[in-house]
């Protein structure tokens, strides 16, 4: 069916138009390209409200804390000075997927945002494995409502200052409140007892006196854990504090939990920025072009959309003014476009590098990539030599022992593999965060806690570490020992916080 009449003309929008665009976009996104999305909830907000939403890290509700006020002030200042335009949208990983559209946007921009957020991001949230594993989209809003109410009750009972101190301490450890692997569910006490009874019963039935005559190996006898160790090192420091800190009271544990939950909620987002934005950008580009081909939007619409689009995917060189690192929109968009290209028009190089997708249908290939990767693995898998050339990527090595920086590899035949690996490492969360784990807890002695910092490639902690460990010590309530070990496990230094 070929429409010849565009859905609207001019920059003005109204609710009816938004609805019509949404339907047209849905028809393309879901009907033609088969994107799998949560239901959408599109909310129109004013720019001040957008600033608000920014400050509370993109969640519509949050507990009160001064740091959000600080964020808000930063955003407000930047906006006021015109240093930064507002994002056109914010989208929340929830079910239904909530997208904020700003009232100042023109109709073409609203169309762009609907395609980008309500179908691009939305399908990513629903499809990507990290989001599927780690966030319960249907309950985050409810949880935040609970958190906010709980926190304000705590403030009433224990005073704003006490609650604030608690959050200050927890926020410094925000990055260390994430569980990366699912654990089996903890058994309740009744279940545990039942299991023990079952085992005892099994032992009784299988009891054979003859086994008790076997000699006992004396080495096995004293298998008790040495004092001051935990069963296994814990990387989720906040979780450990919440469960085992000897001094905290109930509400304090709950606050640790709230911070932890939020950290966990944002955990996948931090690791899929390139993919997520790339995916959404790819889809708004593809969907709106399709609308244009169908004659549903006119030239002026498309020109405005493309103007914003090109701004968004702008990548400056490292030595240009305004360079702010690799632009996740640019890289992600280029990669998804490139996968499509490899599928549709592979060159010999592509066939050599990507034998499994070159020349296959592009939709399933893209879908597979979206579902099963995070930034790190996505780049390692899909960054093609062509893109490395297009972006003129090169790697610089900064080694402590050298008085100079060295160009490690560039965008040439010899360098593709290495540049790709290094770029992928750059998106690896483990490389970004220092490796600190709880390694010991002297339960029967002085109750001190040992934190092990495994130093990697001689990269030390920054100066702030002392403040953070001071907070940690306050949360723990007893001495905290920071033990620095090198890659081979040799202890380099000890530091006591008390």
């Amino acid at each position, binding site marked *: 069916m070929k429409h010849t009449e565009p859905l609207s003309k001019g920059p003005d929008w109204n609710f009816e138009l938004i609805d019509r665009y949404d339907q047209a976009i849905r028809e393309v996104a879901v009907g033609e390209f088969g994107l799998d999305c949560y239901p959408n909830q599109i909310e129109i907000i004013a720019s001040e409200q957008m600033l608000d939403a920014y400050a509370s890290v993109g969640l519509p509700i949050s507990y009160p804390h001064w*740091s959000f006020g600080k964020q808000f002030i930063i955003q407000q200042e930047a906006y006021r000075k015109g*240093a930064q335009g507002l994002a056109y949208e914010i989208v929340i990983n929830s079910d239904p997927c909530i997208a904020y559209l700003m009232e100042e946007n023109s109709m073409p921009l609203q169309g762009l945002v609907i395609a980008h957020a309500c179908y691009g991001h939305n399908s990513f949230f629903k499809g990507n494995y990290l989001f599927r594993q780690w966030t319960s989209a249907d309950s985050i809003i409810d949880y935040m409502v609970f958190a906010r109410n709980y926190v304000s009750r705590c403030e009433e009972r224990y005073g704003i200052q006490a609650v604030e101190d608690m959050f200050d301490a927890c926020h410094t450890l925000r990055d260390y409140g994430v569980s990366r692997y699912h654990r089996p569910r903890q058994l309740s006490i009744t279940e545990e007892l039942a299991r023990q009874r079952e085992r005892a019963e099994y032992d009784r039935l299988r009891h054979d006196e003859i086994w008790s005559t076997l000699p006992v190996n004396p080495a096995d006898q004293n298998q008790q854990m040495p004092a001051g160790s935990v069963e296994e090192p814990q990387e989720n420091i906040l979780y450990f504090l919440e469960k085992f800190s000897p001094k905290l009271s109930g509400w304090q544990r709950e606050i640790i939990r709230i911070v932890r939950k939020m950290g966990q909620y944002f955990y996948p987002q931090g690791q899929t920025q390139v993919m997520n934005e790339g995916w959404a950008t790819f889809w708004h580009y593809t969907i709106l072009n399709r609308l244009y081909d169908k004659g549903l939007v006119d030239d002026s619409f498309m020109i405005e959309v493309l103007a914003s689009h090109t701004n968004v995917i702008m990548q400056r060189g490292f030595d240009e003014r305004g360079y702010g690192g690799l632009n996740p929109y640019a890289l992600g968009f280029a990669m998804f476009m490139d996968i499509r290209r490899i599928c549709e028009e592979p060159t010999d190089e592509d066939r050599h590098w990507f034998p499994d997708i070159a020349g296959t249908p592009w939709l399933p290939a893209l879908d597979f990539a979206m579902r099963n990767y995070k930034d790190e693995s996505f780049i390692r898998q899909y960054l093609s030599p062509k893109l490395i050339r297009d972006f003129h990527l090169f790697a610089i090595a900064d080694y402590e022992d050298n008085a100079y920086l*060295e160009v490690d590899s560039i965008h040439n035949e010899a360098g593709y593999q290495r540049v790709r690996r290094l770029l992928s490492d750059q998106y690896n969360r483990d490389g970004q965060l220092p490796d600190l784990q709880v390694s010991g807890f002297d339960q029967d002695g002085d109750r001190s806690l040992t934190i092990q910092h495994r130093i990697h490639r001689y990269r030390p902690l920054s100066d702030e570490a002392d403040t953070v460990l001071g907070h940690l010590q306050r949360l723990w309530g007893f001495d905290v020992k920071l033990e620095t070990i090198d890659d081979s496990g040799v202890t380099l230094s000890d530091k006591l916080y008390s």
Partner: protein
Amino acid sequence: MSIIIDRRLNDRNKNAANRARFMRRYKAQIKRAVSDMVAERSIEKMRGGGDVKLPARDVSEPKLRHGTGGDREMVLPGNREFNAGDRLKRPPGGGEGEGGGEGGGDGEDSFTFTLSREEFMNLFFDDLELPHLVRNQVGDIKELRPQRAGFTSQGSPTNLSVVRTMRQALGRRIALRSAAQRRLDEIEALQEENEQTDDGWIDDAEVQLLRQRIKRVPFLDDIDLRFRNRVMVPKPMSQAVMFCLMDVSASMDEHRKDLAKRFYTLLHLFLSRKYERVDIVFIRHTDDADEVDEQTFFNDRKTGGTVVLSALELMREVIADRYAPDQWNIYAAQASDGDAFGADPERSRGFLEEQLLPLVRYYAYIEVNGFEPVRRSTLASTYQRIENSHFVMASVREHRDIYPVFRELFTADPARVVP
């Protein structure tokens, strides 16, 4: 199907509470920054609020991260001239890189943000208050002001509300016509039926009558008219005038003028927190007084003797001329080094007490002593004898005295309230 919701009417300032918390947390630092601003600005400019700079270190949120040093590689876009193996000089500052900071404002070492005028004033005058006595008088009602108060059925044509009137007329027309119209409809329905069966007759007279009745209902009637109603409500006085009197004779040096300027600034700010409009009148005097603009007031030199009375007389003239005491809240601040000669101090005191004090809300005499040792000046010792709750005096010697003295004069202290 997507749900579309208009949230524009929801709360706009969700983060106001968080912002307030931020302010509370850093109140000490912010207040210090605000006090520093007094030195840099002119009186008028102080009103607008302004940028506050805090050291970034103070407001940072510490996190665990890698410090400088160790081995690492970075991948960057936009290579033009490098080849593998090239060596580069390490940039100064110990290898920045990795996206270059979080971009908090414009400076790496300071966190700048803007205070609204209100916040600025509140911080500045934290718990100061106009003396209780005066505040009561501020509430005195001297003037009336029209205010909207719904609609009435009588009024002047200029106040006619067309929309209301038409709405009223429409309602009336529907009400008056409906009975006749209903009957007419009935008859017409009957008529149609009869046409089909071709028997019976129609009461033409009744139809005519009904039609006439409907027609007679006027489009607009007197009773439809609605007028916007305005009532006169008492209007609290919202304007104040502030007289700055200063002795500019030779003995007032730059330092003393600067002290005086700071005091005037504070007073002006303080008043503009309370009143919608604050006029300032600058009167300088040596042995005679003249009214000047701010620039001249603070910067121009004029030499001569000292006759305080001249300034007071000029002030009374200006009041009589332009600021009727029943319409203006009058405040005055006089700054002087206290030198006065002959009969002048005594006559000034008399004039002030009898002529001026009854007109003003508050009269502050500030003696700027410079660095001289404490001694009671001639003027001060004469003024000392004034017994009037509208009059205060204080003496300042250094910059840092100004604010405390000002606070002392205006502290909301119930003990100072004169019944």
